[in-house]
């Protein structure tokens, strides 16, 4: 076999594999979860920016990342996207909302970690949306996170493990935000206020969202006490699902002491939709 022939055959066979994989993609389940934080974030970002524009968006960290869009089906917030990004700052989610050509009607901005400064993870995520890679993914679905064989396999395995695709936990727990110790940003308020104004200027209504948090750490404890202060500071209405769950005496459960179980997330999604309807 000649040298040049091998190169040509490698390229040809690769093309065949790609076509087969694209064909399989139409009947393989779309992964709702991923094996790493980075891929989980890519899934959410690509869905938000490349698929049909949603009317509602949850913006935040892995805590609100548990409010999976499918949990809102049948509610007034059925057209929902989730930008609860693992290990990221809510600031990053707001930047991504500004990148969406069709602005959403409502943004639910998770209050936890609002006071923290963006970090290296945020830079990496924003780089992901700035290079030609995202444009490539728009035209070649094969390069999207949902087409990763390892992610499809992981999603399928998790689905098997929990007996159905709809009850599994989205995102990843490889690096937990609870273990990260970063100093709060004293200039958080003007930074977030500026972003919120930009989002509102496009006709989007922004709500602050406080979720119940399991395992306490200094940052989350601070977030609990500062939700009202943030609401005042930013001039945004607060949807306080933590107080609501307390008032109703509902026991919220967590998978790892920090992140919501699917059952609790479904309950909170319903309450969020109700709270918005009544406002």
């Amino acid at each position: 076999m000649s040298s040049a022939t091998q190169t040509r055959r490698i390229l040809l066979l690769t093309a065949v594999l790609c076509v087969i994989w694209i064909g399989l993609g139409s009947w393989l389940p779309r992964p709702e979860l991923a094996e790493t934080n980075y891929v989980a974030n890519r899934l959410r970002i690509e869905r938000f920016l490349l698929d049909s524009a949603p009317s509602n968006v949850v913006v935040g960290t892995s805590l609100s990342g548990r409010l999976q869009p499918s949990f809102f089906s049948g509610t007034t917030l059925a057209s929902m996207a989730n930008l609860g990004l693992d290990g990221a700052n809510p600031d990053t989610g707001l930047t991504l909302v500004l990148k969406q050509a069709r602005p959403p009607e409502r943004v639910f901005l998770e209050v936890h970690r609002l006071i923290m400064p963006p970090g290296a993870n945020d830079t990496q995520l924003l780089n992901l949306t700035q290079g030609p890679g995202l444009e490539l993914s728009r035209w070649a679905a094969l390069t999207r996170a949902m087409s990763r064989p390892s992610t499809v396999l992981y999603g399928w395995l998790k689905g098997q493990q929990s007996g159905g695709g709809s009850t599994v936990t989205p995102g990843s727990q490889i690096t937990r935000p609870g273990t990260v110790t970063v100093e709060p940003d004293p200039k958080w308020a003007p930074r977030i206020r500026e972003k919120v104004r930009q989002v509102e200027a496009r006709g989007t209504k922004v709500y602050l969202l406080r979720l119940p948090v399991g395992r306490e750490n200094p940052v989350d404890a601070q977030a609990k006490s500062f939700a009202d202060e943030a609401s005042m500071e930013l001039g945004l209405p607060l949807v306080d699902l933590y107080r609501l769950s307390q008032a109703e005496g509902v026991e919220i459960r967590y998978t790892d002491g920090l992140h919501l179980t699917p059952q609790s997330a479904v309950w909170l999604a319903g309450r969020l939709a109700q709270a918005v309807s009544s406002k």
Partner: protein
Amino acid sequence: MLFVSWSFAVFLPVVFALHYWGRSMGWQVSVLTLGSFLFYGWANPKLIPLLAIACLANSVASVELMAPNRSAARRRRTLVLALIFNLGTLAFFKYAALLGDLLLPEVLWKKWGPWLTSIPLPVGISFFTFQGISLVVDAWYAGTKGIPGLPSPTTPELKGRHYGKVTFFKAFFPQLIAGPIVKAGDFFFQIGPKRFAEIRWDPAIKTLILGFFLKMVVADNLKEVTSTIRYPDFLEIPRINLIALVYAFSFQLLADFAGYSLIAIGLGRLFGYELPPNFNFPYLSRSITEFWRRWHLTLSSWLREYLYIPLGGSRRGEWMTYRNLFLVMFLGGLWHGAAWSYAAWGTAHGILLAGERFFLRQHKVAEENRWTFLGAVRAVVVFSVVTLLWLLFQLREFRHAVAYVSGIINQSGPPQLQALYVIGLFSLPVVLWHIWGALEQWRRGWSPERTGRVSIIGHAVMLFLIITNSGPPGEFIYFQF
């Protein structure tokens, strides 16, 4: 510029087209040299003068060392000055803070310490200074005889070409930042006009596919899990995951560095240059000695040729040999970085090498080429020891490494399956690659058609996974060295 970046995806075809557009050697060398400087200074143009000065200094020195009518004293002085320049550059940028902390009195350290610790480490400096040292030493030995492809600069024209060739040798972008460390004798004779029709596409493309696969699919996908080998994060991780993480880091390190080296070799082939191999299935080694004959081959070869042999090698008796082994590995460890963890890592390898040599001599154990059950057990033991020592690369403080090992013994808890899934899945290709290497003898019995078929399928699958399953892009681990 990173090999795995969009800017490089534009840079490469432009330089490739310009290179083959002109047919003269002068044009091609100029295009590659200018392209290499652009490649080096892309992220930080301030680095370009440093590379230019290094090229110029080594060119001047090698001209002096190889020109006719130079006295022995002048040549000796030139060699010493060139070595001081190369080692001094490395010492200033890489070891100033470490040496300052070690040697300066406390008063001076308080005054100078912040400045010394703020000196940035220029990317690739460890590699191109070693290449500079090899050039001047080879030029010293060669003298007026010249190095193949680099004749003694007897005329102004030859002198001009000498400068151009040396600059190209030092700056050639595929190997500039993280090797392979190329020796003068292996490179200069290759400089000449290159023809597009003469490109050996198959070896070039296959090497590039394997390199990009190891970097983008294996190393980059393992990166997120292995980032948890960080104090105090690992204190919450159960034993089984801690063990898996050490092995994962070992696979990641190999995939990252071998991936880089293979991409460099593949790129070299695209431009008509053959760079030396850097890895030969290192985790198949059945002894630490064999490991160093398979891991980072060009550094091992450099250390042997320019340090171990000048120190006396194994020619001055057993104890001097042990001392030399120990010293070379200690300095080899420090080459990786200005931290005592690297020195400890090198020292551990030095002790193991010396101890192994002593033991094998005492028991008259001969090396075996074919695989036996005992050989496989030895390979697993050597791999595990080497892997455990890599911890010092990730945990720079010795007490953190000790805490990690203690965690392996004490930290119970249910396994974190998600991380184990990532580790298992993305370590598998490195394991399969090594099995492929271990079966080399058996594969020799295959027909060329069968070998070709397997190779095509394997490379097509790897290319498919590069397209669909790459991890988060990032720098190569060896850039920090």
